[in-house]
């Protein structure tokens, strides 16, 4: 049974690990390969600050809220382990700020210690009259992706540095994959057109500001998500952001966006003016009205391959990744059932 994962960002690698952990014991013949043209530290996931936080509203999409919860609980369970530091996983508290009262988010009981801000706390943030405080998690992909890669390598999963041009390419030839997992993120449209998938371009400035211990996310309800300044302290750098440009495919840093981010963040936290700028980065969030997580059977002549799509996680990929990986693993399980391949290990005679 050959499985090909296309894409090596947080979605590709975590889905690979989840499936391998769950099914390797049941399917001794399981062979897994990862194909990607970009590996850490050059994936979209690497550029993200790594804060676990879903969007403000799930728009009634309870499925996604559940996946967010499963991810949070899974990561929380790993916090006390020796692996946490290697994974780039740690607790962080912080602020969400608004210019008007808003309903509580879908994730208020998932994060820890969620509460509204007191008037004295709001004095810290002139111009904002309402807000939340909570404790959440950081998962830094420049540590997490190498950690996932190590776990997969230990399990014998093979990696190929290759741009896959079609599903047929990995599935249709003589020793092709039986199952293809499509974790291609923003460029999924190159494998199969998907008008609902659009880039949500973001730009960030990474600075040295080690005195900042809280995340601060501001919101401008009218403009939309990520268009308002945010400050997210990591284990080494602090990420300044606040750019979301729907439909913009450019991965070049923009001087105008730099100015917007810098001025807005310095207004929010005046001490940032003393921060040293270390790096600038642009990336494309794989934006979609909802995550595409479903099976598809591809037929080409005599060949047939099962594809599991797992892409379109927008700006909340890290937040939702493990819930989606487990859902993809369940779809994989149903494929095995159909092929009657999932059998308990036979006693050796």
């Amino acid at each position, binding site marked *: 049974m050959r499985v090909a994962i296309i894409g090596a960002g947080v979605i590709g690698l975590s889905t690979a690990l989840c499936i391998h952990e769950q099914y390797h014991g049941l399917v001794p013949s399981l062979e897994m390969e990862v194909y990607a043209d970009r590996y850490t530290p050059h994936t979209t996931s690497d550029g993200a600050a790594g804060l676990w936080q879903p969007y403000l509203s799930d728009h009634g999409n309870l499925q996604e809220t559940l996946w967010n919860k499963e991810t949070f609980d899974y990561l929380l369970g790993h916090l006390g382990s020796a692996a946490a*530091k290697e994974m780039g996983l740690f607790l962080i*508290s912080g602020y969400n700020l608004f210019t008007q009262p808003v309903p509580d988010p879908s994730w208020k009981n998932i994060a820890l*210690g969620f*509460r509204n801000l007191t008037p004295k*706390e709001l004095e*810290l943030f002139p111009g904002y009259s309402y807000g939340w405080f909570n404790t959440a998690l950081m998962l830094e992909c420049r540590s997490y992706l190498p950690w996932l890669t190590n776990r997969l390598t230990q399990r014998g999963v093979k990696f190929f540095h290759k741009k896959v041009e079609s599903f047929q390419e990995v599935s249709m030839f003589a020793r092709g994959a039986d199952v293809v997992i499509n974790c291609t993120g923003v460029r999924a449209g190159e494998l199969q057109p998907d008008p609902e998938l659009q880039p949500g371009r973001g730009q960030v400035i990474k600075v040295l*500001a*080690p005195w900042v211990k809280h995340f601060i996310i501001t919101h401008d309800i009218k403009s939309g998500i990520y268009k308002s300044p945010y400050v997210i302290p990591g284990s080494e750098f602090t990420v300044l952001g606040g750019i979301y440009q729907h439909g913009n495919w450019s991965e070049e840093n923009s001087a105008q966006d730099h100015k917007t981010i810098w001025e807005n963040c310095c207004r929010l936290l*005046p*001490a940032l003016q003393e921060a040293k700028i270390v790096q600038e980065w642009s990336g494309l969030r794989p934006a979609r009205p909802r995550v595409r997580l479903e099976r598809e059977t591809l037929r080409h002549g005599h060949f047939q391959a099962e594809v599991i799509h797992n892409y379109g996680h927008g700006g909340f990929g890290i937040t939702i990744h493990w819930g989606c990986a487990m859902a993809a693993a369940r779809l994989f399980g149903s494929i095995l059932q159909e092929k009657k391949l999932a059998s308990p290990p036979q006693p050796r005679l």
Partner: protein
Amino acid sequence: MAAPKVAVVGAGVVGLSTALCIAETCPSCSLTVLSDQFSPNTTSDVAAGMLIPHTYPGTPIHVQKQWFKETFAYLFAISNSAEASEAGIHLISGWQVFKNTPKEELPFWSDVVLGFRLMSGAELQKFPQHQFGQAFTTLKCDCPPYLLWLEKRLKATGVQICTRKVADLWELHSEYNVVVNCAGIGAQQLVGDKKLFPVRGQVLKVHAPWVKNFIRDGDGLTYIYPGIHRVTLGGTREKENWSLSPDPGTTKDIFDRCCSLEPSLQGAQDIKVKVGLRPSRQGVRLEREVLNQGGVKLPVVHNYGHGAGGFSVHRGTAKEAARLVGECIAALQDSSSRAKL
């Protein structure tokens, strides 16, 4: 009196902040800070500088609360300004956890810190040996930055800062009109205060930049305080122990206790060990005294004995000390004008 000459003895957080308050309230004063130790070699430099008050049995609670409120408000304004990183002042959130529910669930300072509330069951799960906890946001003064920032502001107002070991306050009587005693643990020898005693504290300062929240055991012995560049791990409270040498057994014990609160600290790097002697007393000695030898008088303002709570109340006690200095100067001016009659 043209320019009253005031000497402040001591250059820790109490000495420097007291000098600054005097400079602010008495611009005509000629002010000098005298100390044999400066940052990074003061007791203050060892402390984490967390604004979590220590309760003094010998001082009324409403007074302690006022000192804390004033200190908190002062530092809150700095943390909100462009000077925050230079001054080493930053906000920090975290948890104080108790193995057994304390008698006092709401400490006197709970409405001064930000967002104080009791921890939820879900939050307490992270601390399996603890059954009760408080979550809040407070401020931290990192040293040396804070002391260096105070020194910089003092010099900008024309205050003289001199290295000098003062063996006896009386030796200053001919050069200064008023002396302010902020000698901390040094006051034991300087003024022979037998009510002042050291409480030895050993701490580790480690590199663990992924730790963003503070964790404190309510017993006050085990704590994790993330600073700008290092995390302070503590600690000990050894009464009457004057040793400034780090003890290796204690280092291991502190590290183990902190790792059991925060397992990821196992990965901490570059462990530095420091020792400080908390200048402890039943109550802070904050009062006037007039030294008298052969008819010659020297007004003294004492401001020492802050024990484990120096940072938490420093600005409040500095302001009170400055007020007392003002009283001393007024009394001197009064008596000198009467002498002219």
